[in-house]
């Protein structure tokens, strides 16, 4: 392994841990981020000649800690000498592993605090926990670097000025706050799963993989939280299908037409195992399955089927019924109708779809178009495809809708 690869690996493995431990120690997110970045810059400078240290993570932590103390000492020369002495006394804190992991959890909860705007939560989490640079985040979300930089700076300033606490929430708030963290991670994943950039890549594996990495971390920190396990399982089984989701000609391939041999079997197995463990836990009385667990269970049904005709659609519809009870939104009802079409036919499904009010939602028109096509109502199907094409922002999806519309002409 080259020194460059070693630094990249240490960066992935240790960034969040170092930022988190410095934040706890110095109570300043800004300082923690800057000094951690500086420690890695020193590594880039020194390791090629000095060699990679035997414990690179500890080396980065020590370097970042020393730099933070130097900075504080410079800034607070006029301040309390005693405080300075105390900081020097505790030069390299030997933290028990459990407490260090708690630090990263604290960091996640602070970055995903509900008092911050959603875009700020996403940017801050990717920077502080994910270790992505501002240019990386900007290019991932197709926004100017200056905007991302400003979002992160403002969020850090708010955390400091408004005293957003750096701690794991109390038991009574924990489920809701964990859901908040999961929402941020799922948003990152979804932007990668179906990019909203009409000119760019249709599937952004950089974002899906980063979301999975962070959700794995959260699952390791909160192993008994069913929704965290559910989201991880969901992401793994969706990611498993990535090789089959876009055709050679750049079209989005729907689940029924995907080459299932191209799915990543290891990811499918891992996702299904997490679902099985959750089903067993819920059956044993460990709470009720939330939204992500139900979605993961659905994906387990899909990934267990040899092909689309082999799918247990009655099980899928049952899971949708469960999901509707948790989330009675029209988007969920639309997805349920797609499953109903497989179980009870397109006519029943169309009646459900036509009852929904989803103005401007491309998938509503795309689903209607497909159902109308299956019922032989070509003129109406064409109009619905046109509307869906006009509303979709994803290139691969537009290509798929256009092909389906053009196939109508021959019919």
């Amino acid at each position, binding site marked *: 392994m080259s020194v460059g690869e070693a630094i990249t690996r240490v960066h992935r493995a240790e960034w969040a841990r170092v930022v988190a431990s410095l934040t706890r120690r110095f109570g300043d997110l800004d300082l923690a981020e800057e000094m951690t970045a500086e420690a890695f810059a020193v590594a880039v400078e020194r390791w090629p000649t000095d060699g990679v240290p035997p414990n690179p993570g500890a080396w980065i932590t020590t370097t970042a800690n020393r730099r933070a103390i130097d900075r504080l000492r410079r800034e607070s020369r006029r301040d309390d000498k005693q405080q300075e002495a105390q900081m020097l006394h505790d030069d390299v804190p030997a933290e028990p592993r459990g407490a260090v992991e708690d630090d990263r959890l604290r960091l996640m909860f602070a970055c995903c605090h509900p008092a911050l705007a959603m875009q700020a939560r996403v940017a801050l989490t990717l920077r502080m926990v994910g270790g992505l640079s501002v240019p990386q985040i900007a290019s991932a979300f197709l926004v100017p670097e200056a905007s991302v930089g400003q979002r992160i700076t403002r969020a850090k300033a708010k955390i400091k*000025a*408004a005293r*957003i*606490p750096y701690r794991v*929430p109390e038991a009574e708030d924990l489920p809701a706050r964990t859901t908040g963290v999961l929402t941020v991670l799922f948003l990152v994943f979804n932007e990668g799963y179906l990019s909203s950039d009409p000119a760019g890549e249709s599937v952004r594996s950089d974002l899906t993989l980063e979301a999975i990495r962070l959700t794995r971390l959260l699952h390791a920190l909160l192993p008994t939280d069913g929704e965290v396990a559910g989201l991880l399982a969901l992401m793994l089984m969706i990611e498993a299908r990535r090789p089959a989701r876009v055709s050679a000609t750049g079209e989005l391939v729907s689940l029924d037409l995907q080459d299932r041999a191209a799915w990543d079997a290891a990811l499918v197995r891992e996702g299904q195992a997490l679902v099985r463990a959750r089903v067993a836990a819920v059956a044993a009385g460990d709470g009720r399955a939330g939204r992500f667990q139900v979605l993961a269970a659905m994906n387990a049904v899909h990934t267990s089927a040899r092909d689309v005709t082999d799918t247990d659609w009655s099980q899928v519809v049952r899971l949708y019924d469960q999901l509707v009870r948790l989330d009675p939104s029209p988007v969920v009802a639309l997805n349920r109708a797609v499953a109903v079409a497989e179980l009870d036919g397109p006519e029943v499904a169309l009646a459900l779809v036509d009852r929904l009010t989803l103005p401007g939602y491309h998938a509503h028109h795309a689903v209607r178009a497909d159902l109308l096509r299956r019922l032989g109502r070509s003129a109406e199907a064409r109009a619905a495809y046109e509307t869906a094409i006009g509303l979709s922002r994803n290139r691969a999806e537009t290509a798929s809708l256009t092909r389906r519309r053009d196939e109508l002409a021959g019919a």
Partner: protein
Amino acid sequence: MARYLMSVFGPAEQTELYGYPTREAMEESMAETGAFNERLQEQGCFVFADGLASATTATVVDGRGDEPVLTDGPYLESKEYLAGFWVIDAPDLDVALKLAAEGSKACRGPVEVRPFAVM
């Protein structure tokens, strides 16, 4: 401990019922707000709280010149104006937000939570 301003808003000119549908509704809300203030005091969070007269009764004074310049009405043009506020002490934002939620319920309006600057 950190100090926070919790503000509530209302129209430029308050009506006799301060926007409440009935006198009973107003009295009920005032009683709940009073009880909330007592809880703040018991928890050691209370610094100050009061309601303001209509924004139209405000006067802006610019004393930077030789003679102060007076302008009738509030400083900022807005749809809604500061109508009342609490100043509270809380250990962190999570506690402040919980208190703001209670205050909002009691006074029947949204509450803005803003930290004081620490110099």
